[in-house]
């Protein structure tokens, strides 16, 4: 079922004689050279944890393999140090485009968001805030607005449960599972200005 690829295993097999059919051979190496190449590769990746993922950008959804020091599945701190195309993936077969090939720089971008921040009314700067305080404050703002503006019944007396004064714009690269959690939370409040990136 959930088969995590092992590139090391794959390359070991390649080195052991199946070289003629591997991508290494396709680069013009002879069989002996392929074995050497595979061994060097093996060495380089010996201490890496490999994780299967898909490219975050477009809808081709190319398979990628992320190499990290440390294993998040074992509860370790893991730092990704290399990302490459998944050679087994039926669509991209190991290739990546100029965007996908630079994914590592996305993960480690200097402009990743790192801490919750708040910008107070009229202020010209963001300030750090704890997660607890930020979420408490947002929940407060939501409830106050909902309590004041939720339309329970329309003029005809029909129950409409519509909250139109707060809106939620969902993402385009989050998982289906996040989409579902988001759907549940947002719809349960009666928000109607609910949308996603499909339109743009």
């Amino acid at each position, binding site marked *: 079922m959930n088969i995590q690829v092992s590139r090391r295993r794959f390359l070991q097999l390649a080195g052991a004689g199946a070289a003629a059919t591997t991508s290494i051979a396709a680069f013009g190496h002879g069989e002996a050279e392929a074995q050497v190449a595979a061994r060097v590769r093996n060495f380089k990746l010996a201490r890496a944890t490999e994780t299967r993922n898909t490219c975050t950008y477009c809808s081709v959804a190319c398979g990628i393999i992320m190499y990290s020091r440390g294993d998040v599945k074992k509860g370790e701190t893991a730092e990704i140090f290399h990302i490459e195309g998944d050679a*087994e993936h039926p669509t991209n077969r190991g290739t990546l485009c100029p965007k996908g090939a630079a994914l590592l720089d996305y993960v480690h971008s200097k402009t990743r968001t790192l801490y919750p921040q708040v910008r107070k009314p009229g202020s010209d700067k963001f300030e750090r805030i704890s997660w607890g305080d930020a979420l408490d404050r947002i929940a407060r703002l939501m409830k106050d607005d909902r309590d004041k503006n939720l339309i329970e019944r329309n003029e005809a007396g029909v129950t409409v449960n519509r909250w139109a004064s707060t809106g939620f714009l969902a993402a385009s690269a989050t998982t289906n599972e996040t989409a579902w959690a988001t759907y549940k939370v947002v719809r349960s409040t009666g928000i109607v200005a609910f949308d996603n990136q499909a339109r743009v």
Partner: protein
Amino acid sequence: MASLAPTFGRGAMTNSWTDIKNTDLVVIMGGNAAEAHPCGFKWVTEAKHNRGAKLVVVDPRFTRSASVADLYCPIRQGTDIAYLLGVINYCIQNDKVQWDYVRSFTNAGLLVDERFGYSDGLFTGYDEEKRDYDRTSWDYQMGQDGFALVDDTLQHPRCVWNLLKQHVSIYTPELVERICGSPKDKFLKVCEMIGECSSKSRTMTSMYALGWTQHSKGAQNIRAMAMLQLILGNIGVRGGGMNALRGHSNIQGLTDIGLMSNLMPGYLTIPTERETNLDEYMSTRGFKPLRPGQMSYWQNYKKFFVSFQKAMWGDAATAENSFAYDWLPKLDVPSYDILRAFELMYMGRMNGYFCQGFNALLSFPNRRKITEALSKLKFLVIMDPLQTETARFWENHGEHNDVNASAIQTEVFELPTTCFAEDEGSLTNSGRWLQWHWPGGTPPGEAKTDNWIMAQLHLRLKALYEKEGGPLADPILKLDWRYKDPGHPAADELAKELNGYAVTDLADPADPAKIQIERGKQLPGFAALRDDGSTACGCWIYSGCFTEAGNQMARRDTRDPDDTGAFGGWAWAWPANRRILYNRASSDLEGKPWDESRKLLWWDGSKWTGYDIPDIAPNAQPGQVMPFIMNAEGSARLFALRGLREGPFPAHYEPFESPIANVLAPRIRGNPAARVFKTDVAQFGNPEKFPYAATSYRLTEHFHFWTKHVQINASLQPEFFVEIGEELAHEKGIKAGGWVRVSSARGSIRAKAVVTKRIRKLICDGKPVHIVGIPLHWGFTGEAREGFGPNSLTPFVGDANIETPEYKAFLVDIEPIDGPVA
């Protein structure tokens, strides 16, 4: 997507990336796959190399897709419908029709209401005040038996085929050239190449993207091609299809799960306030078959709906309270889409707004209006892995964000989220594959998953309602939230809910004494859903993704028997792991493959079999049950009935800002059924003041506004520019690399000019039309240089059906200016 559903029954790409290798002709129009989807485009290269397939590109720019095309034909942006109806006219006039397919599998023979008609650019029922149609006459003629009337010989003057033939007859090659600026000889060559694909042994694939959707009649652009593909018999076959290349990695999933104002998961729809109870709601859904013996699968609507309500509210959704029907919001307008939301915000009627991974300030049209709208909010919450411009809309960045922070009273929260590399779950690609992915890195700083953030918000809101009470608290208090860690639902728990499970023991319908599925077990697929509250399912079309056999989306079987490109064991595709939608149409009426060398699904005498999961009941008799099982007719629709707001057939309309008037109906500006807000009408520009036809596009080195945060990409394409042709540059005295100011009725931007041969002057209605290209990747955060984007210029108007903003066709002026002092 809004056009594919009314045509075929489902709003999704029909085939898969890997299937493109099976085609004979690729038509890229309304997209630029070589640059925007490079690794998917590889399958075009495979088809060219291995099958001798040809590539046709129709685009205002000579793109990189065009550079490897066998034939490139220029077109003025916003005139695709005229072009495609011209191709359909050519096919009908020259007998380039897959007749057996059209007769058997489309609604060509069905008879249309006598009152329906089209004249002066409008269909029957138009109300100019409302900018809308009374669609009553857009219907079939119904017989005494409750079924639509049909003439299989296609002779009846009111049959769909004859109405279509008449409707497209005006779109001659001469008219196409006059409207589109496409040279007649090139247009005819394209027609010839496309026409060859009407043969049973040749297929064509259409690859399109936002070049078709970002118009005020985007849905009809796509429909025109969908109709052409039906006429050629190219839907449901290998190497064919309507291949909607979605922009983002999970746009398809987000839409499938219904994160839109008027949707629920699986393309169910949110009730309107006219539907005061569940029975009224159901009375306009759950379509009865329009022809005898058809599956009309939406007949099962109530099963999907009730199971969804059970997934939302668990035990609190009961038969007695109509499964909590009242807890769903009821709409008073067609939808609170983004344009309406920002209009309300602009009017001061929206107080709070959340952007989850969405950079609204750079994404939505008429940036000045967006900035003013955001400034009127009480609070704005941003959840994003990157520092977006939207989170900093109040921050002054000189000309690139000229605002006064002290005058903006919005309270803004920026919440750091994980990115793909640190998160687990599935994404749905263009080809409907749900691929599970695993986290490999530790989130930076205090970044959290979106699941955690949403759960925390819910729990806090719930606690406040528990403590303080408040109006209609039950939908929040009773939301089914039984996760192992309610503060952080796990991806597999959520996926299991999407798949669905048995709420009670499910009896076997064939033998009620026997239990078919035990309580609490995962359902095998949507066929197991029931409408009595005994099943729960978050998204019926995803049912089958996480069964008792485990997480199907995590499958990674690389086998592909006979190299068909199906890869049925790799991940999981909706619906029911079908890889090519409507695949029953790959065989003729008797169930024999149209093309033996490219067979997909066939009738073996007792059942459907082949390389794919049948998109029909496995024992459905050929000749009786038709392939388009979601449509009440069982056939695909050349005539779309009331499915789209501006007409059952596409018709040519100009963009709202166009260099020439509509030559068919000069009085009509833009799409007559598109919604326009009053404040925006005043901001449409005219060609006298803004003479040049502008369009927006992506570059291959960048992805929207994300990759400017990525060092390599920011180095590859560091600086904003606009692209113009040599003739315009010469006319205006603009030097290559020189500075220009580009302005529209809504704003102006400064840029360096890239002068190319890729854009050429077109002659439309006798007048020269110059095109200005504006890429969209710059802003004021990240590593790239600060720059502008097209949304400073584009009009605030969207598609009539789904409100996708008109980004691809608008008017600008351009002037050379002195560069900034270094």
